[in-house]
């Protein structure tokens, strides 16, 4: 039996004005377990707290009920008070007789009656309270960043700057991501390489940062502060620590017909290659799908020309396992496939390209050396049509494209149009738009400049069809403002393809037990207040894996994610919330139902040996809750049929006791 103390607060006249506090204290005195019941002017004051402390000590109280303001106000205060008197802080219950009683009810009899009932419910609950101790777990002071684009690079740099080691895992042979492929950046038009490559060098030279390029995460276990991650380092057949990146092999390799993915297949590279001149790490990689030596054992040219002996045809995939305290997901995006939008003739004509392809065509390091030429015949295009929202803002029932706005297209199209008009004033540029969306600092000004200073034709309407005819592209479109149907003979059509999360995100989310939305973007812990955290503790989100983002936004989110990681890694130990779910293993069926509703992936199943009453040993599958991960929502407790799953601090029995006390 508990020994319970009840403390009724007057809160000046805030409570005492509509509740007869003396009557409340008196009435609660006779409740089961109550040994002392007092009232006082201000319980939260020093004197009030001292009164509670003394009462706890004098009466050997095992639990207390404070009838006062909302627990959201002073629960923490009274828990500290209890702890100071040697009582477990979770043996405190608050009856909210101010916000939910005295302030909303007018006359004293009604207020008093309700306050007594609320007090009784709290007493009934505290009778079933058990001392709770928050679990503690150590923190591995190392972070993992998955994805080496601008988001991952910035996050890694910021974490390293705070003094914590960081590893970047990147699937491509080099870090840099999509930004490395871009030509200029809006709205300032500085060149992407000029601002990105110094950061790539910083990362490479930072002794806190390790880069695992050409690698992927294959397994994640553990939980916040204690992740264990398996990283697969794919064989690149070149010894990374020996290769100097001189590039001789990439010039001598006889296999010249490999589509160059960095230029989106618009030109070719060799079977041994360095994606681009500023690649980090700047080492060569052999493409096993094209290398004749690896496929048929005949060639070996690269090995012969390599002056340092870095080529290793025998290399195998390697797996390494590392421990991390925090994981940042920065897996980025890709343009969607254009196959469901063939009215734009993407598959029929080389001169219908996506905007990312245009970036490469305009980039000085691209396939045309920065001169804008048509991919089909290398001619200079004179009429260029841009089509906006290709695959963005589609209704889900249309079963093609994405429902969301891809966010970045309006701005990069304005940039493309402006750059083209600037460099080739003899070119006519048409942009067909549904809306021009330019929220962002200096963004609308930028777009207006494209229209007003550069004479780009912005037409409100949509292209309905593109048909290749001869060396022209017949574009049929509507002009909704003028109420005309336009027929334009274009030389080049550029499609603003919607962007979607990288394909690697979905399996990664499963490994991390991080939740995703229907579009495969990672879900935030809270859409407004915790935008860079995943609901899964210790997993953070950076960049376009969380939703479409431009570079400034990505960088600021990357910094925010880093600061959250730093905040976590600064701690030596993590103290959990003790009000977590707990499974009674003897009652657990091992049915996996609770696991399905847990938003945090806190529940796992294990086969455990049990000594049965008949002295046999039986292996049973039972649920176990990782207390460091569980946040205590209680979804599992209702999903559990047998009642094996219960929530500490809000047990089935406690809540039913409250129900009973109220309904008595």
């Amino acid at each position, binding site marked *: 039996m508990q020994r319970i103390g009840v403390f009724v607060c007057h809160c000046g006249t805030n409570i005492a004005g509509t509740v007869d506090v003396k009557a409340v204290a008196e009435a609660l005195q006779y409740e089961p377990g109550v040994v002392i019941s007092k009232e006082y002017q201000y319980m939260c004051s020093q004197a009030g707290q001292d009164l509670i402390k003394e009462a706890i000590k004098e009466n050997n109280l095992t639990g207390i009920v404070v009838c006062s303001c909302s627990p959201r106000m002073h629960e923490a205060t009274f828990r500290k008070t209890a702890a100071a008197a040697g009582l477990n802080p979770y043996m405190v219950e608050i009856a909210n007789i101010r916000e939910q009683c005295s302030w909303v009810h007018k006359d004293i009899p009604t207020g008093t009656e309700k306050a007594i009932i609320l007090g009784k419910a709290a007493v009934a609950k505290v009778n079933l309270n058990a001392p709770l101790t928050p679990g503690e777990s150590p923190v591995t002071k190392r972070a993992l960043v998955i994805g080496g684009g601008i988001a991952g690079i910035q996050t890694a740099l910021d974490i390293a700057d705070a003094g914590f080691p960081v590893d970047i895992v990147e699937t491509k042979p080099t870090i840099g991501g999509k930004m490395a492929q871009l030509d200029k950046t809006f709205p300032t038009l500085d060149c992407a390489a000029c601002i990105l490559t110094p950061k790539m060098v910083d990362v490479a030279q930072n002794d806190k940062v390790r880069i695992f390029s050409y690698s992927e995460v294959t397994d994640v276990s553990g939980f916040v502060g204690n992740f264990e991650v398996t990283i697969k380092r794919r064989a690149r057949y070149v010894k990374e620590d020996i290769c100097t990146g001189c590039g001789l092999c990439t010039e001598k390799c006889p296999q010249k017909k490999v589509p160059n993915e960095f230029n989106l297949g618009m030109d070719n590279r060799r079977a041994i290659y360095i994606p681009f001149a500023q690649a980090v790490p700047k080492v060569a990689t052999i493409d096993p799908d094209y290398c004749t030596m690896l496929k048929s054992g005949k060639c070996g040219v690269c090995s012969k020309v390599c002056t340092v002996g870095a080529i290793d045809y025998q290399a195998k995939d390697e797996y390494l396992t590392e421990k991390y305290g925090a994981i940042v997901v920065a897996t980025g995006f890709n343009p969607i496939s254009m196959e469901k939008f063939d009215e734009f003739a993407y598959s029929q004509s080389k001169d219908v390209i996506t905007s990312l392809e245009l970036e490469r065509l305009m980039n000085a390091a691209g396939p045309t050396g920065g001169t804008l030429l048509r991919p089909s015949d290398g001619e200079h295009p004179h009429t260029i049509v841009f089509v906006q929202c290709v695959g963005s803002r589609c209704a889900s029932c249309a079963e093609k494209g994405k429902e969301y706005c891809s966010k970045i297209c309006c701005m990069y199209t304005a940039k493309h149009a402006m750059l083209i008009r600037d460099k080739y004033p003899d070119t006519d540029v048409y942009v067909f738009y549904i809306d021009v969306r330019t929220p962002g600092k200096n963004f609308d000004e930028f777009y207006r400049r494209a229209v007003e200073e550069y004479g780009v034709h912005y037409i409100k309407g949509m292209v309905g069809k593109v048909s290749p005819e001869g060396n022209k592209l017949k574009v049929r479109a509507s002009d909704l403002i003028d109420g005309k149907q336009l027929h334009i003979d274009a030389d080049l059509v550029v499609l603003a393809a919607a962007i979607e999360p990288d394909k690697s995100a979905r399996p990664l989310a499963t490994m991390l037990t991080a939740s995703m939305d229907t579009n495969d973007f990672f879900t935030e812990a809270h859409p407004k207040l915790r935008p860079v955290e995943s609901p899964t503790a210790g997993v953070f989100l950076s960049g376009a894996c969380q939703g479409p983002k431009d570079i400034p936004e990505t960088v600021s989110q990357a910094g925010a994610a880093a600061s959250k990681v730093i905040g976590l890694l600064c701690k030596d130990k993590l103290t959990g919330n003790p009000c977590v779910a707990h499974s009674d293993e003897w009652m657990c069926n091992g049915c996996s139902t609770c696991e399905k509703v847990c938003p945090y992936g806190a529940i796992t199943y294990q086969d455990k040996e049990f000594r049965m009453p008949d002295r046999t040993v039986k292996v049973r599958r039972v649920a176990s809750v990782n207390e460091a991960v569980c946040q205590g929502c209680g*979804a599992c407790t209702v999903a559990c049929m047998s009642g094996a799953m219960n929530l500490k601090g809000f047990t089935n029995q406690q809540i039913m006791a409250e*129900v009973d006390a109220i309904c008595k």
Partner: protein
Amino acid sequence: MQVTEYKPLIVAFCCNWCSYAGADLAGNNRLAYPADVKIIRVPCSCRVNPTFILRAFQRGADGVIICGCHPGDCHYTSGNYYTRRRMALLFSMLDYLGIERERTRVEWVSAAEGAKFAATMNDFVSTVAALGENKRLEDLRCKK
């Protein structure tokens, strides 16, 4: 308005993060609602087991209302979505058994919606009061 002596007993389960805070806000703004409403704090609306609801009715409650964060705003991301499915099925079953559907309700009340909380409770209390005492679901043995 029908004036009646009869005072219904209402049990309100409120999630800690939104609706309980909404109830506190109603208090801060002195927005009155009948004292017949007694609030039980739960971490999330998804903590409410159908057993609790039936238990309340068994012990003499006349109405039970569950309040949680608006869909999409759950502190635990998905808790109220589970609540929504569970209660949709449970309420439909109670209706199927011939129990007055007005006695059970789910409302989404955010921490900023003190006025909505008070209005909801006023409406719920008068609806349940109009139905009268809960005879169909109450346990005669436990009622004093």
